């Protein structure tokens, strides 16, 4: 799905063209550059909806928005990285996996389960 500015504004009812352009200028939304202007995909539109939630429903001031956005972006990056790490651990031999899990649990203060002991 690819949308130009007009289609995005038509689809996201709470959004005006002026706001959309401002958000792109601020770098909060980063559409692809097309020959006739910006082109938005699903990820961009979902992000625009998130921005509408934050700004309009939760009345978050514009000053605070970059901080909140950056926290959300960091959170997603961390989660994705964490998932990669988990996938990498998953590919290890059983013994290595056990050691990692046991070590992780002990650090978090979780009691080892009988399975870990085995």
């Amino acid at each position, binding site marked *: 799905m690819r949308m130009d500015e007009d289609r995005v504004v038509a689809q996201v009812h709470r959004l005006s063209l002026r706001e959309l352009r401002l958000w792109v200028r601020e770098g909060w939304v*980063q*559409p*692809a550059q097309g020959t006739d202007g910006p*082109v938005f995909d*699903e990820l961009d539109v*979902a*992000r625009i909806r*998130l921005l509408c939630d934050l700004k309009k429903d939760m009345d978050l001031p514009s000053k605070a928005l970059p901080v909140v956005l950056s926290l959300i*972006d960091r959170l997603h*990056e961390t989660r994705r990285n964490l998932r990669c790490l988990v996938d990498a651990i998953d590919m290890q031999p059983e013994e290595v996996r056990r050691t990692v899990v046991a070590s992780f649990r002990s650090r978090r203060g979780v009691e080892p389960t009988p399975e870990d002991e085995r």
Partner: protein
Amino acid sequence: MIFWAIPKSAAAMMRGEIDASGQERSERQYYHQYAGQDAGRRYDPGMTPEDYGDAADFFSDLFGRRNHSGGGGARQEFHARGHDLRYHLDVDFMDAVRGAKRSVTMPDSKDIAISIPPCVSDGQTLRLRGKGAPGFGKGPPGDALVTIGIRPHPIFTRDEDDIEMELPITLDEAVLGSKVDVPTISGAVSMSIPKGASSGRRLRLKGKGVARTTGKAGDQYVRLKIVLPDKIDSTLEDLAKRWRDHSDFDPREDLRRKT
């Protein structure tokens, strides 16, 4: 980690599942669903090793997109790869099939030349190394990511390497069979219409689809469509009447049996 300590309702609000007053919302695709996928990487802030505290060395080795040089010094120099810039380029159907050279204008009004390889598909992304934003410090520049959109063709449609088109034919060509010229993406070819061909019949022109430099070419599929003239003349009318009077052919027999 702190974000797992967020109260349930606040977490749901962040995900956009409920609004500030706790009302549940109707079904829709939320940002976190997209951001969790690989495509979400685009909005990653690019965390620095400092973000990982004591585990900085480990994580910078692991994920490190940003290189901090001179580990020993109190003050570290900052180097980072530049951002990727994303472009969208619509090309004509034939350009996508044959390949073409185009240029896109960057926000700073510089042009970058893009050579579109033959057989590019709709939505495919081309990566132009080093054509993105300049790096920080001694970091390398980012890449330009160009997503290709293909404009529809008035006659041809494409399914991967196969081409499909509709071919209008006359009644006599359908009844008697004939040889007709058919357009393909590489010029017109002569094709035999078999005797007694019905509308909707699909004929294959082997190897007349999109040809890749490696591997075999796709095929062109020709869907026949019998077209009658706008004005039916008396000859055709007489012919039809005579045929009706002696024919017991019923194309809807199957239809009736199945309903």
